[in-house]
């Protein structure tokens, strides 16, 4: 009886975590969000996976991939809103009768809080590269020869039979073609340990696939939040892209979206998508970008102490700006009062240098020479990280650009006192008090251990506020949590 109750409770908690309310971001309408949730942004075939491939893998290996693609996505931390069969940011288009899946900005740039979708928050549970690595590897190992590919096709047929459907000839052919192509593809070998939930590959894939450069150092990075973009001039963690004065923020987002590697390069494509085709997609990107530009962190209930605000002004504001907080409808709404983008040299801030180092001068030069790069006023290598606005900071753990510090509480500890290893992901344990992950065994399999002793994962630097007393740290943390 007790066991049955426990199972029921666990099932309930999982269900509530999976089915989010589709909250509207900022001033954008719910209708606009609904239109963008699965908008493929005109990405063409680059990066697509036939849906039938995912179905075949689920049929072959329930234990690893779940019983259907919905479960597969959930296992890799994709979010899902109520009554929506497709996860947030997953797209499905039909071409010649073949369903093709891809992703859009919202897969990484929509998180959750209190059971609601929050557009603009990073999705800290999504193991984006883990998903693709697992799917590609599972197909590759079965697709080495005709007999293996036929067994994949058999699995797809069984899946459809189980659903009372017949697999169409076109979809069967797409499965075989995808599998054969993947088996022959020269996929890049990733450096170092897996990126894990809440981080992704950006520069390495770009360097190797687009420019034929070496992949650069192991440099995992979080998708940046979009709450403070209106206050910023550049948008990247490094501030390496410069936009002309007066460029609307949505335009900046749209341009940067074009840079997402798999919009234009993909291991299965023999050559990158032509530049003019990529640039022609910017209108589709603009519509998504307008939604993202409206992103705002949800207001909070509690008002922080004045002491916390004072400490913030004294210790943090010179880099991170100042904020206005006012009550509206019983909630505390935060907006930027003043912020001037500040690039802090890597040597000064002391945080892990790999991500910045992966964008060296040669990389910046090559970006600048692409038609996308030419949309910028300048593409440079600043050897710095941007001190970002801190709106919605509570939704952005683990902290620093590489997600190397589990919580705000840990960030207020001296770097050598910060946790060396901690779990991240949908099943990792989260503490509201610490504002982030805590060192504890995860509740389930959707988690990964982050080892900050590895180069690229270092939790060094940004030791501001670490000298405060315990009471002041608590007050400052309360304030940071309220932003």
């Amino acid at each position, binding site marked *: 009886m007790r066991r049955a109750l426990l199972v029921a409770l666990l099932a309930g908690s999982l269900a509530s975590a999976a089915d989010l309310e589709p909250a509207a971001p900022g001033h954008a309408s719910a209708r606009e969000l609904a239109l963008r949730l699965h908008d493929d942004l005109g990405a063409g075939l680059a990066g697509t996976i036939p849906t039938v491939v995912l179905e075949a893998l689920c049929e072959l290996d329930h234990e690893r991939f779940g019983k259907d693609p919905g479960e597969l996505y959930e296992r890799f931390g994709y979010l899902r809103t109520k009554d929506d069969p497709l996860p947030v940011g997953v797209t499905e288009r039909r071409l010649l009768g073949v369903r093709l899946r891809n992703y859009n900005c919202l897969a990484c740039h929509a998180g959750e809080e209190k059971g609601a979708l929050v557009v603009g928050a990073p999705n800290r549970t999504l193991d984006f590269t883990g998903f693709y690595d697992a799917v590609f590897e599972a197909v590759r190992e*079965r697709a080495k020869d005709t007999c*293996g590919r036929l*067994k994949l096709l058999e699995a797809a047929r*069984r899946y459809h039979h189980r659903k009372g459907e017949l697999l169409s000839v076109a979809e069967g052919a797409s499965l075989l073609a995808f599998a054969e192509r993947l088996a022959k593809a020269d996929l890049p070998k990733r450096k170092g340990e897996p990126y894990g939930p809440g981080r992704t590959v950006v520069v390495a894939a770009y360097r190797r696939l687009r420019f034929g450069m070496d992949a650069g150092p192991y440099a995992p990075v979080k998708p940046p939040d979009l709450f403070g973009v209106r206050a910023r001039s550049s948008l990247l963690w490094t501030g390496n892209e410069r936009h002309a004065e007066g460029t609307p923020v949505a335009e900046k987002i749209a341009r940067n979206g074009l840079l997402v590697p798999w919009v234009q390069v993909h291991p299965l494509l023999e050559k990158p998508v032509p530049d003019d085709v990529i640039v022609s997609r910017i209108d589709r990107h603009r519509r998504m970008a307008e939604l993202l530009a409206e992103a705002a962190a949800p207001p909070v209930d509690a008002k922080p102490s004045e002491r916390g605000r004072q400490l913030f002004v004294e210790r943090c504001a010179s880099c991170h700006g100042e904020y206005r907080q006012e009550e509206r409808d019983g909630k505390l709404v935060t907006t930027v009062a003043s912020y001037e983008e500040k690039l802090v040299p890597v040597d000064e801030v002391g945080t892990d240098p790999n991500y910045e180092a992966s964008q060296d001068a040669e990389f910046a030069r090559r970006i600048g020479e692409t038609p996308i790069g030419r949309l910028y006023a300048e593409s440079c290598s600043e050897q710095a990280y941007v001190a970002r606005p801190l709106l919605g900071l509570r939704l952005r753990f683990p902290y620093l650009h590489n997600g190397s510090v589990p919580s705000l509480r840990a960030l207020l500890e001296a770097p050598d006192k910060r946790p060396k290893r901690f779990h991240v992901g949908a099943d990792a344990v989260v503490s509201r008090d610490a504002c982030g992950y805590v060192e504890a065994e995860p509740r389930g399999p959707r988690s990964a251990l982050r080892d900050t002793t590895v180069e690229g994962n270092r939790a060094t630097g940004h030791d501001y506020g670490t000298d405060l007393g315990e009471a002041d740290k608590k007050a400052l943390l309360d304030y940071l949590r309220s932003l």
Partner: protein
Amino acid sequence: MSFPPPPPDSVLERLLDEHAPLAPAPLVPEIQVYQARDLYDLWGAAEKLVGGVLSPPFWAVPWPAGVAIARVLLDAPVWARARRCLDVGVGGGVVAIAAAKVGASSSVGVDVDPWALAVARLAAARNGVSIRLVKQDLAEEDPDETPELVLAADLEYERGRAPLLRTRLEALVASGAVLLAADAGRGFFKTEGLRLVATFDVPVSKPVEGAAMKTARVYCHESNVS
């Protein structure tokens, strides 16, 4: 995994006549086997016939490694003559039929797919030989009769099953059997412990194999080489 059983012989023969007529096998025209005109059409027709999902009709393709072993047996009957022969993964039956043709004391074909057993039985009859067919997964269990010659062709294409099958083949060799194994580029075939006996270029179905010709290599176990 259980699949719908094959229909009665008369129904199965009608299906084969329509979609996979008997024809001389490539490289071994002395043997006739059922060969799919279009593998996918045959697969669909067979599933429609029994109203369920079937394993791919591996039994309607003269796989290049299989016909290569059959060629070796026909050219050098000494491998099989007067020996108890076991064909692992009998498929359409070309290897077991070749063993029977050259005077094996017994020719046994095993397969996990009951359709393969039915089709191989029909093919053996049409070739005027008798083979014994057993539904068995040698990745999971020992054969019910100790063989003197083990024949294994184009089997190692699944990561999970390939090492299990190889372990079984090694165990049979350790118990005194001679092994002839052949491969035409399957994903998980390993040549460790094997000696090359012969190489053949075999014409294959382009829609199935993605090429008009495949190279098949026949090996024996190195412990069988005196």
